[in-house]
């Protein structure tokens, strides 16, 4: 029985596919999972917060330990044995990384299911009750169903061990592959691009109406913005460069005043330090917020 992939070398987190040890661990994991959900559901409301707090702390502690614990250098997985408890923990953490990543992937993937459930619930109710604009909900739900059908159909057609390689070429496609292509590439991606391109209209309108040189700061900002924009315009860049340094010799002092060099100076000497400063502040804020979440110090909500 090879339902599961063998991932050599064997560690605390895996066992050979089909082995009894693996089956026992799977059964245990299933039982623990069901018990955990049952306990969480049955726990009194005032106990839920500590339970969530403990799980959050343990989850966060893993990555904190991974970051702080000494790492075994040049470890030969499956061959090297830990020489002391510190190295033992390092090996255990090292082996657990893909497992924890899979945990987070699965939990994140649940969001997709939650999204589908939420869409069906909200728009299904709208259609059933014929609320305002219910027709749009019909379009949305039918589009979703059609896309799922075409997507899975295309995927299924590519599982055929004989036909699959040929499907890399468009001329070998069947109706389901074309349907997927029209819906996904021909419609969804194009509409995505069209929606995003609308930003150009907002930017133009906002810049025209709001970008006024009323203060010195605004004037400096406008000048810097113009120089950077000009530096993205090849023809302006070339004309300016020819004007200040006609020979094109990079040894000339005037080369420092070409649009390329001026824009580079703005980016390197003004923009970069400013962004680094902002990033540093954001990083400290994120650290403080992370600590509050990890240690369950956030007291808002969740009380009965």
């Amino acid at each position: 029985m090879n339902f599961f992939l063998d991932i050599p070398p064997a560690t605390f987190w895996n066992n050979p596919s089909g082995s009894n040890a693996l089956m026992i661990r799977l059964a245990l994991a299933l039982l623990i999972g069901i018990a955990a959900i049952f306990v969480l559901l049955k726990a009194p409301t005032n106990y839920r917060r500590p339970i969530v707090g403990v799980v959050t702390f343990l989850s966060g502690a893993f990555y904190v330990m991974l970051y702080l614990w000494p790492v075994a250098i040049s470890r030969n997985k499956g061959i090297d044995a830990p020489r002391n408890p510190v190295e033992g923990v390092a090996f255990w953490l090292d082996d657990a990384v893909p497992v924890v990543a899979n945990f987070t992937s699965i939990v994140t993937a649940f969001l997709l299911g939650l999204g589908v459930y939420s869409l069906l619930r909200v728009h299904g109710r709208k259609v059933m009750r014929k609320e305002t604009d219910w027709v749009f909900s019909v379009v949305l739900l039918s589009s979703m169903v059609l896309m799922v059908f075409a997507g899975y159909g295309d995927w299924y057609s590519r599982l055929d061990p004989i036909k699959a390689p040929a499907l890399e070429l468009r001329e070998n496609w069947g109706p389901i592959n074309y349907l997927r292509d029209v819906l996904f590439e021909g419609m969804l991606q194009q509409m995505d691009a069209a929606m995003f391109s609308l930003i150009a209209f907002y930017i133009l309108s906002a810049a025209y109406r709001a970008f006024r040189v009323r203060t010195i700061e605004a004037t400096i900002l406008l000048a810097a913005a113009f120089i950077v924009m000009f530096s993205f315009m090849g023809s302006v860049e070339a004309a300016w460069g020819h004007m200040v340094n006609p020979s094109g010799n990079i040894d000339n002092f005037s080369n420092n005043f070409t649009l390329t060099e001026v824009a580079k100076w703005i980016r390197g000497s003004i923009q970069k330090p400013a962004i680094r400063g902002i990033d540093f502040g954001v990083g400290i804020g994120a650290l403080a917020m992370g600590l509050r979440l990890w240690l369950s110090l956030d007291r808002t909500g969740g009380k009965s």
Partner: protein
Amino acid sequence: MSTKPRSEMSLGEKMQSVPKPILYLVLVLLTSLPLFKELNVPNKPNEASEDFYATVMAVPEGSTILIQSDWTGSTRGESGGEFESLMRILMRRKIKFAVYAAGDPQAPQVVKDSISRVNDERKLSGQPGYKQWDDWISLGNLPNAEAANQAIANNVQTAFPGRKAIPSTGGSPQDVFDSPVLKGHTKLSDFPLLVVVTASNTATIAIERYAGKVKMAQMVTGVMGPETLNYYPKQVVGLVVGLKGVYDIETLMEGGINTADPHTIKDDNGKFQGKSVEGFPGELNKGKATRYYPTLHFAFALLIIAVLIGNIGMFLAKKEAGK
């Protein structure tokens, strides 16, 4: 903003209140018209783009690189051009690649469609296509960038457990790590290069998790450029930013790099050492950027003119009010 009827407005007020429909119409015309005619705009590739091109061109032929692709149709003007130009270089140099996504579930399909387009292009010019399994592998999507990147940094093989693909000759699906693309690759350091093509902050997440473990180059959108520029040239050895960056790459693919490098020490004749990387002259190097760059040009020009008109209008209105 003045609420007077337009006929009673002064010139300054009129200049500050050009109706939105007129602005939008001019924008539509200026950005659409260049798409109908190919315009050759002069270009001087910037250092970050040159370093990106030189880095990809330095990857040994036949080796495998890793690509993280986190873009979809919404940024295809920039990211689509970036990815396709990267594909053209890799395919011409016979460099294999494994591609995965960590930012958007749509990304793996978008990548497959993009590779398919470049393959069609090669077929039309009589070149062999790139085959899945033999030349490239899709590792799919990992839905949490932080955890996924951490797992990949730890061990590439265990980060993608159970990924299977059908060999190009057919038959039952096999583990992708048995394919010619990924055989023998377990650690990040087994790959000579990792390229991140992204439209989001997965650029910085990748830097946080991978820096120092693999040589990394990135292709990001104009919006992500300033943020990512912080990490160039240390953590990110080559950087392509936005449509101008893709235009740089397409320019370099045509002409290569053959310039004096001002960062070198001058020789006895007082000359800087040369930077030289060959291009692919005469091949199909012009892609999305060559088509879209004039549009960006006109859009910037319109934006600058609009801001200037608004400001001149403001000064005129102030002057008229002071009379």
